């Protein structure tokens, strides 16, 4: 299949690679040419041009505004993509943005799936991402083989926007768990206890979690180099808290964790890993 890919960052690059390895013909557009690297793909001059060449287009970028600009802006995908083609947006954006973009594309007969992913850079490299999909079930079935190149757990959540709602839930739980792990590590250290041993012991009990495994280990090793840059979680928390506000749903823990992320940003650790929440607790 002719597949377009926009957003060759830490997540997008390995994802594009998997699609290409599976035998699909890859077309890319990149703001910075350097990000294309040695990827065997046809370079397109604009998103619109890329849209003209492809049956399915993936986007993996940062913000709602980025996706809107790519999809609907000048020389955007909407100008090139044919009726019946599908845009799969794997970015994490606001549910209502996903719905708005879907409506605009729908006027031209282009389908959108909001398909945010979880699993981090490692999950992207290993092609083990969890993919939560919003959009028409029939459209998902058409492109499912493509998504299966990227992840193992592909769940149709509901109509457009539903995938982003699921991703918001994912981010709330994950970052709160990182904060919990950070507080536990901080307490252990302050009490003069070996953090590595605490982490090892906890991993076998009721507190075991993927976050405690991965982030706990980073904290123990004090390795704060980015897996996922904390600024992205900070961005996501803006979306999550806004969604809670729009629904009138109190989220006291999420709000508290959001403030720790604000402090993390203020310390200048936005491009480091979110395990840096431990370092926020160490600020004196």
């Amino acid at each position, binding site marked *: 299949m002719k597949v377009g890919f926009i957003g060759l960052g830490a997540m997008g690059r390995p994802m594009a690679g998997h699609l290409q390895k599976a035998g699909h013909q890859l077309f890319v557009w990149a703001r910075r040419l350097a990000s294309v690297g040695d990827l065997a793909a046809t370079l397109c001059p604009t998103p619109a041009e890329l849209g003209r060449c492809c049956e399915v287009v993936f986007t993996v970028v940062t913000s709602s505004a980025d996706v809107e600009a790519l999809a609907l802006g000048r020389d955007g995908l909407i100008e090139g993509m044919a009726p019946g083609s599908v845009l799969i947006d794997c970015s994490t954006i606001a549910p209502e943005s996903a719905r708005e973009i879907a409506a605009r594309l729908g006027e031209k007969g282009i389908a959108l799936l909001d398909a945010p992913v979880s699993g981090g850079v490692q999950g992207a490299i290993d092609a083990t991402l969890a993919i939560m999909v919003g959009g028409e079930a029939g459209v998902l079935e058409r492109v499912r083989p493509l998504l299966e190149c990227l992840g193992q757990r592909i769940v149709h959540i509901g109509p457009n926007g539903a995938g982003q709602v699921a991703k918001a839930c994912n981010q709330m739980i994950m970052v709160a768990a990182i904060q919990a792990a950070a507080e536990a590590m901080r307490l252990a250290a302050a009490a003069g206890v070996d953090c590595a041993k605490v982490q090892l012991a906890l991993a076998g009990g009721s507190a075991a979690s993927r976050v405690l495994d991965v982030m706990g280990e980073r904290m123990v090793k004090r390795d704060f180099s980015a897996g996922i840059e904390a600024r992205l979680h*900070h961005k996501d*928390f*803006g979306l999550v*808290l806004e969604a*809670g*506000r729009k*629904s*009138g*749903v*109190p*989220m*006291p823990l999420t*709000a*508290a964790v*959001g*403030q*720790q992320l*604000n*402090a993390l*940003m*203020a310390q200048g650790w*936005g491009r480091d890993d979110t395990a840096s929440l431990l370092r926020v607790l160490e600020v004196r």
Partner: protein
Amino acid sequence: MKIGFIGLGIMGRAMVLNLIKGGHTVTVWARRAESMQPLLDAGAGAAEGPAGAAQGNEIVISMVADAPDVAEVMRAVAAAAEPGLVAIDMSTIAPAAARRIGEELAAVGIDFLDAPVSGGEVGAIAGTLSIMVGGSEAAFAKARPAFECMGKNVVHVGACGAGQVTKAANQIVTGMGVLAVAEAFAFAAKNGVDRSKVREALLGGFAYSKILENHGQRMLNRNFKPGFKSWMHEKDLNIVMQTAHELGLCLPGSAATAQMFNAMVGSGMGEEDSIAVLKLLERLSGQE
């Protein structure tokens, strides 16, 4: 002075009456015609639309709900304004939004002041509002006589946006203050202690505040009529939290408080006074 006034809600209505009482000539406009009538009866003139409120006046004041409303009426004002007009927004909106509106108006030669108020309906009626002003010294000097009819504590804080920053700071203190008094009352009641006595005792010490005195008394009376509606306090705290997010500023207390107000709106208490947060606390702890 000839003054145009846009927005005649609980606050705006009382502020206009004080401007009239102060001898100013006021023309008013509001989206709902019925809210204009009492003021026309009191001697105000009727403007046709926000543009009409600007035409022929020396200053024009808006007192509306949120930033998009302010932007909308100020665009109409900009289109109709004559040179030398001072446009003043007394609504509570985000500092960034105020700065944007100020820049747009400056581009067409209109001086803009952000001048949000504190003091609630009581202060608006009594003409004792606190008014915190951002904008140029010259525009402030020109508008000052009007401010002094509406408020007692009129402070020129700094450049455009500074008034809204001050108001956001005010909402942090009042939001947490209301929650603090409500929590103290819930604590006293759960311990079987008379909260009115607690209030009385606290008023003599370091916990004294206007909120403990006034809002505390209304909590005791279980008078949850607004006043200041909790959905508006929630909106204001959202301005605080969004600004904190953009700046990378850690405000744990404000964040927790904002969630309580969020819960109030979500559970249908948005139209009640923000002191109804006491009811929410009581429900959470099974004190009803």
